[in-house]
């Protein structure tokens, strides 16, 4: 029996990191939104590592915040440790990483969702999609509730036909022994979706009181932590950070693993899903890198009010008793008490080339997908897609064009373009090397890149936008001031330079020239000529970065401009590649499958050659002229 349970603009299925962002974005943009999840206690749950950020991932959190999303604000409220990584490297790869109180993180996110206007949070296991004329019009739950919707966002994580594997044991399950979503996977197949089978894993958790920390190295947080959100002010819990600890595997660890390989599902053939190369299990690492004598193990607290520690580096699906032996072979863990075993989990994912860059599916209209269902791994990757799917689901309801972030504007854009253009044959993780314009996609300038978009679509408040515009103006003004400021080779200047171990001046130069010296900072110039108006630290930082790296920034900007010309050449969506004269057969097939929106996107499809692109351009020009002539007459 079914009953009509309500009608919404947008329904989001799944309240993990993708679902939370999607639902909040849609509701904040004015849509009546329903967020359905299998278990209300699992909102924004972290089933694996209790941390957020790092290179590329931390950049994405900043981008989500710059667009008006929640992840940055939420982790700022709930971190137990904050570190800026890569500080010895260039500004583009500085990356913030937080250890989270994973329970607090959930509670705070749930609280935000519960308080959000136009957003309804409800427990329910969705088993079917309602489809009319090739478009999704609602969902049906296990309890028979039918919800109507104008657009639907699927963020099913690892729940879709999830299967947990642990030694010889295997059972249907979502993460952390949650109910899996089996029937929804079948519904997707009925719609015509091609599904892939992926695998991921998590390490065991151990009891704090059974760890001998004296045998490990302390890994503290930063004394003066930075925050993810541009809105976060001072946080009192910055003063009460909790350290992580570093230890290593031993020879004995490797011996135990080698002796028990025959019981490892990775090698016994029990696992059919494709696992990520960048997140291998410990048994995988020991087999593939047999020469490496020891591997790092980080012990990470899971929260302020728990004794559970996450054992980073020890992801495994070995049998439970072998896991205990492995743990106890590690210095500091000789007497450790294992609280939960590690496990591998297999799940269904939608092959992401079946999506438009808006994350709407090509197969079913008004249906969007985001997060692990699209073949990615990681909370930040999920949240980054979640906010875009939420934005575009809302814009579809409102009859507006989708928002697509360029590769040169954000890691979110790089990730989505990679997924929908190239697909992925393993769980996709963001790395800074996936971005061709890494220097432009910095941690510090996420607001300059994306806040104007966030404001335009209604996710950034007027007040915040005002502040942002002010910052941008002040940065520009200060750069202009430095350009106009002349430094003469006089006593004060030479003294400062000597102090900074910088060569003395031989003639007068402007401030920009001086600041480009590698050994000088904005502070050095400021000591000679302070700005007439008080500037905040992040404005000074921005000025320094933009001036110091001008040469490299311009080099990349030239490439971006060239690429943008290709991105601007749009391809009409009703194009029929099969009838285009002269196009190679392989190009016809690939283009027909991906249906790129622009020549730029087409150029990134493997198997489409420059000659094919030229022919496509000639065809489009022909088409445009014929169409123009038809309209003219």
């Amino acid at each position, binding site marked *: 029996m079914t009953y009509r349970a309500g009608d919404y603009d947008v329904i989001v299925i799944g309240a993990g990191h993708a679902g939370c962002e999607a639902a909040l974005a849609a509701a904040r943009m004015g849509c009546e939104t329903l967020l359905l999840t299998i278990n209300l206690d699992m909102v924004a749950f972290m089933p694996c590592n209790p941390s957020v950020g790092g290179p590329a991932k931390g950049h994405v959190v900043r981008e989500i915040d710059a667009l008006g999303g929640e992840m940055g604000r939420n982790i700022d409220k709930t971190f137990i440790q904050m570190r800026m*990584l*890569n500080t010895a490297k*260039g500004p583009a790869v500085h990356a913030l990483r937080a250890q989270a109180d994973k329970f607090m993180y959930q509670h705070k996110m749930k609280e935000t969702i519960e308080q959000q206007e136009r957003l309804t949070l409800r427990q329910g296991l969705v088993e079917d999609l309602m489809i009319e004329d090739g478009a999704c019009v609602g969902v049906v739950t296990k309890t028979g509730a039918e919800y109507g919707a104008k657009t639907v966002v699927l963020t099913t994580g690892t729940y879709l036909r999830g299967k947990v594997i642990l030694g010889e044991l295997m059972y249907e399950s979502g993460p952390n022994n949650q109910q899996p979503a089996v029937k929804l996977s079948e519904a997707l197949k009925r719609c015509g979706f091609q599904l892939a089978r992926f695998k991921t894993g998590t390490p065991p958790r151990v009891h704090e009181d059974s760890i001998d920390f004296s045998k490990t190295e302390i890994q503290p947080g930063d004394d003066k932590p930075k925050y993810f959100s541009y809105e976060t002010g001072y946080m009192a819990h910055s003063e009460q950070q909790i350290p992580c600890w570093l230890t290593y595997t031993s020879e004995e660890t490797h011996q135990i693993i080698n002796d028990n390989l025959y019981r490892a599902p990775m090698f016994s053939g029990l696992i059919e899903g494709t696992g990520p190369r960048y997140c291998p299990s410990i048994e995988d690492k020991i087999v593939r890198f047999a020469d490496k004598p020891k*591997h790092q193990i980080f012990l990470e607290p899971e929260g302020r009010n728990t004794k559970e520690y996450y054992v980073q*580096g020890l992801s495994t699906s070995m049998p439970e008793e072998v896991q205990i032996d492995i743990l106890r072979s590690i210095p500091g863990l000789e007497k450790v008490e294992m609280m939960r075993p590690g496990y591998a989990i297999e799940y269904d994912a939608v092959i992401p080339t079946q999506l438009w860059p808006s994350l709407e599916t090509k197969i079913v209209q008004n249906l969007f997908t985001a997060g692990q269902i699209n073949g990615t791994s990681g909370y930040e990757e999920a949240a980054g897609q979640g906010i875009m799917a939420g934005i575009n689901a809302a814009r579809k309801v409102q009859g507006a064009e989708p928002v697509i972030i360029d590769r040169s504007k954000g890691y979110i854009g790089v990730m989505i373009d990679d997924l929908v253009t190239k697909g992925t044959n393993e769980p996709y993780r963001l*790395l800074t090397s996936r971005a061709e314009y890494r220097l432009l996609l910095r941690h510090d300038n996420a607001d300059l890149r994306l806040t104007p978009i966030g404001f335009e679509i209604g996710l950034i408040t007027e007040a915040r936008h005002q502040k942002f515009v002010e910052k941008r103006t002040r940065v520009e003004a200060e750069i202009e001031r430095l350009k106009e400021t002349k430094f003469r080779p006089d006593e004060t200047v030479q003294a400062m330079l000597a102090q900074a171990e910088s060569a003395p001046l031989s003639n007068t130069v402007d401030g920009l020239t001086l600041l480009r010296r*590698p050994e000088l900072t904005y502070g050095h110039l400021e000591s000679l000529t302070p700005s007439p108006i008080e500037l905040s630290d992040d404005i000074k930082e921005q000025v320094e970065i933009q001036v110091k790296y001008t040469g*490299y920034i311009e080099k990349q900007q030239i490439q971006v401009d*060239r690429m943008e010309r290709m991105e601007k050449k749009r391809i009409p969506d009703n194009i029929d590649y099969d009838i285009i004269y002269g196009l190679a057969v392989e190009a016809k097939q690939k283009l027909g499958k991906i249906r790129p929106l622009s020549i730029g996107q087409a150029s990134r499809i493997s198997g489409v050659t420059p000659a094919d692109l030229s022919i496509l*351009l000639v065809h489009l020009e022909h088409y445009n002229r014929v169409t123009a002539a038809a309209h003219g007459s």
Partner: protein
Amino acid sequence: MGEDTIAAIATALGEGSIAVVRVSGPDAINTVAKVFKSKQNLREVPTHTVQYGWIVDPHNDNVLDEVLVTVMKGPRSFTAEDVVEISTHGGIVAVKSVLELVLRHGARLAEPGEFTKRAFLNGRIDLAQAEAVIDLIRSKSDRAFQVARKQAEGALSKQIVPMRQQLIELLAHVEVNIDYPEHDVDDVSSGLIRDNCSSVLKQVQELLIKSNEGKILREGIVTAIAGRPNAGKSSLLNALARENKAIVTDIPGTTRDIVEETISLSGIPLRLLDTAGIRETSDRVEQIGVERSHGALNDADLILLVLNHHEPLHDDERKLLKQLKDRSTLIVVNKIDLPGQLVIEEVEQDYAKERIVYLSAKEGSGIEQLEKAVSGMFFSGAVESGDITYVSNARHIALLHQTKQSLEDAIRASYESVPIDLIQIDIAASWESLGHILGDAAGDSLLDQIFSQFCLGK
């Protein structure tokens, strides 16, 4: 318009006449102005005028050629963009060096059919011609692709591949430092960057020196020397190599039965293959050799079929004559120093007189006529892949210069304590330009390298 600026040789390559390098795009005038020395500043001359002057390499003031330069500002030009045409002296040497210089000063080599494509996209070519434009792009690209595929097996590729491997290992190391900062992998030192970049730079410089000497043109026109055993194929090869100073003398044959020699004949690179003698045989070993010879004939751009003047035509030769008559084939009647038993009228049934050359490889007489016949075929366009081979070499040289520039930037930056992720931009650029020589897209291979070289993960 906002496109970049492209350049290519616009005329068929010909001896004695004039050759034209065409440059088109928003930066065309500025690019040529950098290398053109004249009374007039090219940036200021009126459109549709011709200037007299010299092409000079600004780095060393070497004068490359005395030229006429025509400036045609858009939209009143073939492509509707700013177009500059440099008319150089004919022959390959001058036009080749002028093109290379232009490519080093801001233009990129035009893709096959790109001038015509631009003319069409900018409305200079009638709508009705769209299919013809596509045909041109397709056929030129397909031919370029074939040449590129042949070159992928060539000597240049064999040198580029290990250079790229060295760079990608360095890049993977840099990327691991950036993306896994807490991992127990040592940081890449500026010394390590310098060592690797300098070592690759040295190899690039050596290649560039060789390219100036023409040695890079190893991938020349594939020329098979065919004929029955003892028709005098080897002595012909030796004679040609002697007369034209072989570019490479130490190349082992691709098979035991095929000897190779690369020569430069009036500036045209020829890759000579001396094939095993072709005849019907029951000897299994010899059969293999004969099969290989047939394979070499199929792949050849140009075939020199050697007949023995001293013997009557054999059935094997009659077969070959029929088989090769529609190909780019020259008949070489060898051993004219000996009394003639060959009935030449039989050959002339299928071959025009211009396609038959008489010589004595042993005495070295008649070689000149052969050279004339070969260059005649080449410049008349009968040997098709020739200019593409040549042009793609110009492209290689331009790419090698780009690689050199990027490596030098990286090395300089490593002395100036520039952060590693910025130096990476130049290292990656050098890796990519080398990749363009091989013609493979960069793609995911960096990630493959990272995860095979380092043990990463949580």
